C-alpha cells in the first residue's frame, strides 16, 4: 500500500487580485522564491553557528575572505548566466527581432505545414 497523501489545495475558488491572472501567478512565484532564499540563508547561518560552537569562527573568516582569481571568475560567470535565465523572455524577444521571427510567420507555418 502506498503512503497516504494529504490534500494540497483548499476547496473554494481562489480569488484573483490583478487584472491579469498571470500577475497573480507571478506574485505567488516571487514569494515562493523569496522563501527559498531565506531557507538557504538560514542554512548558512546555522552552518556558521554550529562551526562557531566547535571553535571555528567561520563568519569572521567569511567576512575577511578574499576570493582567488579562479573563484572570482566562477562567480562572475554564474551571475551572468543567472541574468540570462532571469531575463529569458526579454532575451528571446530580442533574438526574434534579430532573426525577423514573428507571430505572422508562426501563423503562416500553422496553415502551410499541414498542407506540405
Amino acid at each position, binding site marked *: 500500500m502506498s*503512503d*497516504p*497523501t*494529504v*490534500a*494540497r*489545495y*483548499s*476547496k*473554494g475558488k*481562489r*480569488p484573483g*487580485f*490583478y487584472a491579469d491572472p498571470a500577475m*497573480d501567478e507571478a*506574485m*505567488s512565484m516571487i*514569494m*515562493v522564491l*523569496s*522563501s527559498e532564499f*531565506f*531557507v538557504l540563508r*538560514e*542554512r548558512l547561518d*546555522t552552518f556558521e553557528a554550529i562551526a562557531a560552537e566547535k571553535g571555528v569562527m567561520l563568519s569572521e573568516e567569511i567576512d575577511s575572505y578574499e576570493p582567488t582569481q579562479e573563484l572570482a571568475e566562477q562567480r562572475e560567470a554564474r551571475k551572468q548566466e543567472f541574468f540570462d535565465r532571469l531575463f529569458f523572455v526579454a532575451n528571446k524577444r530580442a533574438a526574434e527581432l534579430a532573426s525577423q521571427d514573428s507571430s505572422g510567420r508562426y501563423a503562416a507555418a500553422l496553415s502551410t505545414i499541414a498542407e506540405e
Partner: protein
Amino acid sequence: MLNTFQQERHAMLPETTHDESSRQEFVKSFKQYVQNKMLPNLHPAYSAQVAQFEKEHDRLPKDRREIRKIMVKDPGFRTYASANRISQELQWESVLTSIERQLPELNAKAKKLSAASGAELLIDPNFETPRYITALDIHCMPGGYAGEACEDDVSTGALYDRGVYLYAMGYMGPHNDDLGRSVGNYIKRNLSGFTPTNILDMGCTVGHSTLPFTEAFPEAAITGIDVAAPQLRYAHARAQAMGAEVSFQQRDAAHTGFDDNSFDLIVSHILLHETSGKAMPQIFKECHRILKPGGIMIHADLPPFDHSDLFSEFILDNETYYNNEPFWGPMRDMDQVQLAKDAGFPADQISFDQAPMAILEFAAAEDKGYEEEAVAAVADREFEAGEFAPGGGWEVLIAHKSNEVGGEA
C-alpha cells in the same frame, strides 16, 4: 519590535527539518510584515480612492460592500490582499510537507497516546458533518477541518495546530491557548464565587482553548466537542502528550445529544463565525437547554458590526472573500444579544465584554521567544482592523441562564 515567538514542542507536533522550519518561520515573518507595514499602507490608498468616489458621486460610500467595489481596483490594496492570501497558502504548504513525510508515524503516535489516556475519545462513525464545514475549506486549509487522508487520520489536526500558530504569529502563546486562558482568567476575576464543576467547550478543534480550563478549574470535568474527527483524535492525543486528561467527543454544537441541565459552564472560542445563519441561533438554544439553572455560556468571538467605521468593516470582511470564511461577514450583521434572548436567556443577563489577553503570562513564564518587550508590544498596541488579535482583550458574549429550574424567559 521583533517577533521571535516560538511554539512549544509536544509529542504530537510534527517534526520539522531545518529547511521546513525555515519555510514556516518565513511565513510567520511575512505575516508580521503584512500586518505591520502593508496593512497601514491601505489608509492613504483609501483616502485617495474615497476622494475620487466623492468627486464622482457627491457622497461617501454607504457600506463596506461599496468600499470593496472601489478598493479592489486600487494597486496598493491588490498588493496587500494578494500578499495576505499568498501568506495563507504558503503557511499551509510549509506545514503540509512535513506532515505528509511522517503521516503514518503521526497517526501511530496519536493512537498510542490516546490509548494511554484515562479520558474518553468518542468518534461517531455515523456522524454527518455540517455543510458549513464541507462546502469550503475554511481558512483555505487544504482538506478542511474534517478531511482525512486515511483511516484514523490526524493530519488535518496536526496541520491546524502548527498552522494556527503561524497564522497567529505566536500571539496566542506557545500552546496557542491565549483565548481559553483569557476566558478562564475572566471568569475567575469577574464572576466571583462561580466555580464550574462541569465544563463544555464547543467547537474545540485540537483543544487549544480547552486545556487551559484544566488549569483554571482543576476540579472540574471538562469535555470538548467538535464536528471534525481528525481534530478530535489529534486533540485527545495532544492533551495526553501535554499531561491533561480531557474527554473529546464528536458532536454537533447545535444538536449535542447531551441531557438537559448537564453543564454549569459552556464556552466556545472563535466558533460562531465558522457556523451558519441557521446553526448559530440553534447553538444558542442548545446551550440554554443543556446548561444547568444558573449556568453560564461564554462565546469568545466577534460582536456585530456597529457601522461606525465602514473602512474597518471592509478590511475585516476580507476574510469572507479571500480566506474561505463564508459566515464571517454575515455573522457580524446578526444581533447576537437578540439570539440569546430568543434562546431563553433573561434579557438583563446577556452582555458583551472584553477578556484581556493572557499573553503577558507567557513572558512571565519565560516561554521561548516571549521576550517581555515583544509581548508587551502585542498586549498594549492599538488594534487596527485586519491585524490578528486585539490589543486589549478578546470580545466575549456572556449569558447567564435563569436560576429558577425550568425558568424560561
